[in-house]
């Protein structure tokens, strides 16, 4: 955190989070419009999402699948019947004058999320109250035209799930850990890209303070306008400090909406009184209740990939990897899949981990590419590892082979051959390079041959360089040593 905020001692922070996640569907929740991000304003609209008179919503089956998978991945019980409801309020970017959401009968309830382990080694879990489906609103653009607000309805009707946690987090860091864990799971399962910058993951935080040891919850405020996980943590620390200072002075926390002001590093009350809204929820008569049979829920459950937590413990166990390696390699499902491909095909998990972390990730960071577009496929990297293990390519030559593979996408054998990087252990060739090196560096040669042993490393380095790393370093050492004795 860039700003440290200190709160008076003796108070406990209580946090619950509401997370909106955009489902990764091709089309909107209730019409066939594209969900593509960044299109020209109002291009992705139709009678349904423009709320033209007479248009009706039809539920996107893929959105239901993704929402169900998300709920199951978060350990929720999926309700065999859930009900869409209308949340009524007037706003220009809400074309129907209501948002289709779910209210008293949500898609799923009673989940749990393990966000880490405490000092005693027991797991810290956060309860998931509910997961429900809803549609996004459009976007109001206030700063584009002087004296007017522009409306972009491309986002109107985009499918979302809202994930509501129990007030189980006791620190800003725990809230951060919850969000990072949640995001990782949703990405693993392919629910969402969880890109906060594009608005595909949004967080509202409910926070209250109570005396340490107190059971009763204090009055909470809702903190909004949180555009990154670290800002969530910052805002929670700020709001907690504000509340506790107020309480210490004998004041009372007012239930209200607070906005996080990133530029000024403060939280301030929102002007709109959220609490005064009466949304007049009632069951959406245009959509029948969502009935999910046991077979469907079962299929969604079995289609879930291995979740991060399970994968982490399996990597630690099966591959005997250290905590750091496990953390890095399970940071995305794609990377973990890549690593496993390399490990299985090379039969050398340690080397696979090293290459994936130091080779693949470094290359990806440099190019900014996605691992899916990476030219070195797991089989090729595994082949390179095998070449090194079999002594066909030396360690330093392997790095050059890899760089060339990244550039061209060619197989390692091809690259090694073409670039002359196959290890040379042929005595004659090695002697030839040694002779050349000794001739080119007469002073060092003389001193070495005169018994200055510490120069051997320098001379081997010259030979390796001359051979572009292909010389068998061990053999060069032996040959040089025998030359000195000879």
């Amino acid at each position, binding site marked *: 955190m860039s700003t440290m905020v200190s709160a008076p001692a003796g108070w406990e922070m209580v946090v619950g989070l509401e997370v909106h996640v955009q489902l990764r569907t091709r089309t909107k929740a209730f019409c066939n419009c594209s969900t593509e991000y960044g299109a020209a304003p109002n291009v992705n609209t139709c*009678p349904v999402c*423009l*709320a*033209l*008179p*007479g*248009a*009706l*919503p*039809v*539920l996107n089956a893929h959105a239901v699948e993704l929402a169900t998978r998300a709920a199951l991945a978060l350990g929720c019980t999926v309700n065999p019947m859930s009900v869409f409801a*209308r949340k*009524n309020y*007037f706003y*220009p970017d809400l*074309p*129907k*004058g*209501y948002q289709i959401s779910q209210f008293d009968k949500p898609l799923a309830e009673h989940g749990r999320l393990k966000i880490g382990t405490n000092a005693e080694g027991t797991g810290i879990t956060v309860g998931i109250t509910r997961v429900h489906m809803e549609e996004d609103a459009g976007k109001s653009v206030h700063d584009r035209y002087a004296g007017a607000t522009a*409306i972009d309805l491309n986002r109107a009707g985009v499918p979302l799930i809202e994930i509501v946690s129990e007030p189980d987090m006791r620190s800003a860091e725990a809230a951060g850990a919850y969000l990072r864990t949640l995001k990782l799971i949703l990405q693993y399962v392919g629910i969402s890209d969880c890109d906060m910058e594009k608005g595909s993951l949004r967080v509202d935080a409910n926070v209250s303070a109570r005396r340490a040891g107190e059971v009763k919850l204090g009055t909470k405020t809702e903190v909004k306008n949180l555009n990154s996980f670290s800002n969530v943590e910052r805002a929670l620390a700020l709001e907690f400090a504000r509340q506790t200072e107020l309480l210490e002075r004998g004041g009372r926390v007012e239930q209200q909406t607070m906005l996080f002001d990133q530029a000024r590093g403060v939280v301030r009350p929102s002007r709109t009184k959220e609490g005064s809204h*009466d949304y*007049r*929820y*009632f069951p959406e*008569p*245009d*959509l*029948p209740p969502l009935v999910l049979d046991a077979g469907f829920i079962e299929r969604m459950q079995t289609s879930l990939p291995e979740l991060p937590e399970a994968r982490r413990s399996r990597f630690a166990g099966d591959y005997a990897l250290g905590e750091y390696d496990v953390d890095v390699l399970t940071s995305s499902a794609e990377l973990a899949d890549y690593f496993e491909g390399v490990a299985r095909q090379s039969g050398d998990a340690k080397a696979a981990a090293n290459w994936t972390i130091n080779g693949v990730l470094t290359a990806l960071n440099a190019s900014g590419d996605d691992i899916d577009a990476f030219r070195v496929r797991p089989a090729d990297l595994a082949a390179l590892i095998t070449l090194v293990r079999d002594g066909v390519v030396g360690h330093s030559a392997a790095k050059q082979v890899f760089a060339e593979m990244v550039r061209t996408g060619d197989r390692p054998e091809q690259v090694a051959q073409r670039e002359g990087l196959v290890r040379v252990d042929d005595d004659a060739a090695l002697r030839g390079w040694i002779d050349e090196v000794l001739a080119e560096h007469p002073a060092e040669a003389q001193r070495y041959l005169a018994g200055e042993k510490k120069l051997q490393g320098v001379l081997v380095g010259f030979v390796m360089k001359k051979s572009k790393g292909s010389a068998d370093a061990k053999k060069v050492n032996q040959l040089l040593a025998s030359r000195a004795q000879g």
Partner: protein
Amino acid sequence: MSERRAARPPETSARGIAERVRDGDITAERAAREAFVRGDDARVGPDGLNALLWTDREATLDAARGHATESDFVDRGDLAGVPIAVKDNIATLTLPTSCGSRILEGYVSPFEATAVTRLRNAGATIVGKTNMDEFAMGSSTENSAFGPARNPRDRSRVPGGSSGGSAAVVAAGMVPIALGSETGGSVRQPAAFCGIVGVKPTYGRVSRYGLVAFASSLDQIGVFGATVDDAAIGLQTIAGRDVMDATSADVPVERYVEASGASLAGLVIGRPKEYFPDFLDARIREKCDRAFDAFRKLGAEVRDVSLPHTDLAIPVYYIVAPAEASSNLARFDGVRYGLRVPADGLAATYEATRSRGFGKEVTRRILLGTYVLSAGYYDAYYKKAQQVRTLIADDFREVFASGVHLLFTPTTPSPAFPLGAKADPYEMYMSDIFTATANLAGVPAMSQPIGAVDGLPIGGQLIAPHFDEARMFGAAYALEAALGAEALR
């Protein structure tokens, strides 16, 4: 008071027109032209019945000509060349869809209702949009922002509502079929008042896509026909599952015209006592008795039954319908389409736009609906109403499970009333007393002429179990044939 022709010339029935067009006797364009002439003769426009709000003759004739040249298939359809009028709350591509409201005055939909597409695909020509109570809220068509429509049988009286314009253009002989919409009786009641046939299908039978929503859980597009056959052809054309409406049902659609001539032997027709209360006009009771006699002669058994929660239908209806309406009409905010009355700031613009755009009855129902959904009132009103609604639906389920196939009742407690006669909204609401139950339960029902009182038509109502429209049409065809000219006397 002018007595309508007792029997319509068969060449102006839907079947008759389609046959002539298919046989090449006349073109679709000619059929449309004839409809406009009949409409002019009956003065269906603003200077007369004020039943037809929006027409575009040249465009309509062009479209009808297009049928002949572009598509042989359409020319051979069930409705080849048949002129059809459409209620102003059902989306059509070229004519306005204004819902009888200032807030949508001049609004032309960029998409078409599924029901209209199906009619056109069967060869029909859409000749105009018909007057209605604003957003279908009313029972007399007096709540139209474009002036009240009048009853062709007696121009001093209302045609009923909210689909009064559609009923009037059919009763006036301009078209054999018109689309209306039902929420609490808005097709059956005007059909009864105008002496024609009006069908409200099972909820989910006809796609609501393109029907501007009033109360989504009650709304259905319905069909007016000059005769049972016209209504049957119309409904079988528009019925069936539509992927654009999640509440449309995937239940096979019979050809209702094949119910013509079906035997009623063994059929059990229930006579629910709650629909024959003491205050019912004795002459209406008499016409119903005559219809029951006709059913008996046709071999049916008439059985006394009870639907005990009937009297709760109106209170329940006036909670559920306004609640849904208050939400459905929120989209008319002046932001994207329709009327916008600029004012200082967002809230003021909403207020100015909606205050000027909506009429009194619509405003009343939005307020009512907003109230019953509000925190603290929801349980006492909306939730309770939904519970009672279940009881009303259970009444029907139980009576149909007891071996009763159909129910027969009067459609309305009185014949068409004079314009301006029902100034008290509550009195107006009571004219739906016998019809709102079918909407609340989702069952199909239809009204057909069973006689006249002082020259004013009386409607009899058949109610069937969910998706049993075919049996309902069977009884309707048989009763129509049995009554013959009596149906209009």
